[in-house]
């Protein structure tokens, strides 16, 4: 009895503390189910994605501030070190005040996976999987899958070289096919299963894991650029751990859509 009781208590308190301050539907875009072949994954087969909805914008400083005001255990001074390293909200002046140079409508960054995960749960949402995130992110303005377009890849590569984009405001990049902004060009974003694709960062060593990808691509012309843009994203994911808080890393949430609900 006792464990069950305390579990219920935790559940109750957890639910009580998670105050959902916003109505969410108008801030999310519906993503239609589909399938695609990822550039790099656990296996090279086709991935199926179900209907879901995704936040149109990454979570902002303002939204996260609201969250920590309501959920004290995620405040900078209160957070458990196991769940967020020393860089957690490092730029904030204190628990509930941003630094004067930061803007409310910039994406929140320097949040750990645990914090991002908790935030989404408090909104009744969850973090997107890599498969879901990549599925939406392969769109440009007009096409659901623009990965073979030079312009699409160049846009991503250019962002890699643009300094301090984390200080930009949300919604200033392009609106993609699904109506979602900022998947490329603003900040990196957490995924629920970010560490399921292992990359050691030593790309020559990794090559033995997937010879098709690395050795094969060396002799391919057309897909090289596409691979380069995506590799760096996977490399980034491979470099982080769930308690890391990183200046250029934010997040957004997604929500399951009941399968009966038809998309427009």
């Amino acid at each position, binding site marked *: 009895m006792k464990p069950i009781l305390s579990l219920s208590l935790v559940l109750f308190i957890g639910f009580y503390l998670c105050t959902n301050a916003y109505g969410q539907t108008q801030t999310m875009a519906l993503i239609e189910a589909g399938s695609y072949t990822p550039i790099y994954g656990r296996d090279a087969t086709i991935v199926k994605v179900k209907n879901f909805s995704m936040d149109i914008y990454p979570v902002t400083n303002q939204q996260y501030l609201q969250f920590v005001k309501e959920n004290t255990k995620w405040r900078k001074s209160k957070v458990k070190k196991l769940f967020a390293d020393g860089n957690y909200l490092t730029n904030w002046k204190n628990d509930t005040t941003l630094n004067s140079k930061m803007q409310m409508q910039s994406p929140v960054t*320097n949040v750990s996976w645990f914090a991002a995960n908790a935030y989404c749960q408090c909104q009744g949402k969850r973090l997107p999987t890599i498969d879901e995130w990549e599925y939406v992110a392969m769109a440009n303005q007009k096409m659901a899958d623009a990965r073979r377009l030079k312009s699409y890849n160049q846009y991503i590569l250019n962002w890699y070289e643009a300094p301090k984009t984390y200080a930009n405001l949300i919604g200033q990049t392009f609106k993609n096919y699904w109506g979602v902004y900022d998947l490329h060009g603003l900040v990196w974003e957490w995924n629920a299963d970010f560490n399921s694709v292992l990359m*050691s960062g030593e790309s020559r*060593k990794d090559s033995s894991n997937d010879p098709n990808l690395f050795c094969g691509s060396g002799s391919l012309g057309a897909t090289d650029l596409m691979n*380069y843009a995506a590799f760096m994203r996977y490399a980034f994911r491979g470099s982080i751990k*769930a308690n890391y808080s990183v200046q*250029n890393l934010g997040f957004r949430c997604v929500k399951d859509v009941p399968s009966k609900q038809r998309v427009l």
Partner: protein
Amino acid sequence: MNFLCKYNKIVTPIAISVALLFFVSGCKSTEQQESDPTKITIEGEMTAELTAPPLVPKPIGDRKATKLIVNMEILEKEGEMAEGVRYVFWTFGGTVPGSFIRTRVGDEVEFHLKNHPDNKLPHNIDLHAVTGQGGGASSSFVAPGHEVTFSFKVINPGLYVYHCATAPVGMHIANGMYGLILVEPEGGLPKVDKEYYIMQGDFYTKGKNGAPGLQAFDMQKGVDEHAEYVVFNGKVDALTGDNAITAKVGETVRLFVGNGGPNLVSSFHVIGEIFDNVHVEGGDMVNKNVQTTLIPAGGSAIVDFKVEVPGTFIIVDHSIFRTFNKGSLGMLKVTGDENKTIYSGKQIEGIYHPEGGTIQSMPNDDKVVASPKPVSLKERIAAGKTVYSKTCFACHQAAGEGVPNAFPPLAKSDYLNENVDRAIDIVLHGKSGEVTVNGKKYNSVMTAQTLSDDEIANVLTYVYSNWGNNNKEVTPAMVAKVRNKQAH
């Protein structure tokens, strides 16, 4: 939903293996000879002195092996590739090439690699001086805002390249992530008077060589090995003019030369000097009396020579179009008394006509790329300076002083100020044969320059506005007039 439960499921951090210096445990038998570098014991610890190019830390080969702490910070930052050309460099220590690391054989290096929080990307480091998997790369993968530490013992003396090996490796290297680590032999290298650090690299920009503004990296050009810039120490003019390296007559000079690539192999040469000693490929083998030494991408050489006479010695990649068209040109300025026996001074050292001895006329079709049109005189002069440093500088020199007996001066030049149409014509079509400038005779060749009307107007305006000339403004219309009149 209880997310406390979830923690336990998800905490599967990526295992980062610690570099195993397996050679240490590999030899457990009998007494080791003293010469076995893996058995050198260390004393104490110290923090390594790191230097930005072209400087080199003080020699340390005569100290005992020690625990050497290296603190290296990775910075992604915008810098200058050439006059008016900006580029986002990825750097070890804030410079291209990265900070010079000096160790001696037997040192146990504790390497702290720090990835600045503002950086976008994870990085790592592969040091060719490391014996172990990935040269340290698999142990040093580090996210922005984090630091990793790994250790290794340097057991092979020599000059080694280090570089980033994170995917895509080519791009990380092409953006400047390389440098040199020296492992001095027991007792050190022979003493010299001056030591410098030079590293060549090739760069791949969206815009063509000289296209102004912030230039993006061009992956396709990298794959095609079509470099827009080939430079020493990360930029055009990193080693020229006031940045030139220096020595005095009679001194010995040692150059630690590396080649970061990512693609091109360097034919390293100093015009007017012969290398007395070359540590071929940065190793033990010493070759003597070498004119040009080949430095592979991801390789190095240590060269030394005694400077016997004064002058400006031009440092080049003797794949010479790179030098005169892509930027791989540096200078060693030697001051002191002349030695007429070694070098008379009447003959001309280093006249170099890569295009051959006759005037060349490139087809002037419509392919000339228009540069942004300056409106004001000030902008015209600024744009002209860029053209000058790319096109004219090698012969006519930084302050238009020319080279005595070889290339006439543009500073306070009576010949130049006398007739502007003639000056335009010379830039357009070249000039050969005897001319008299400021009372001195010159008999040399200037090739026709493939510049647009705008560029010629700008560069001539720049020349006329400087160094005591008559401040004439040359317009594109004036150039067009001469071009059309002389068309052939």
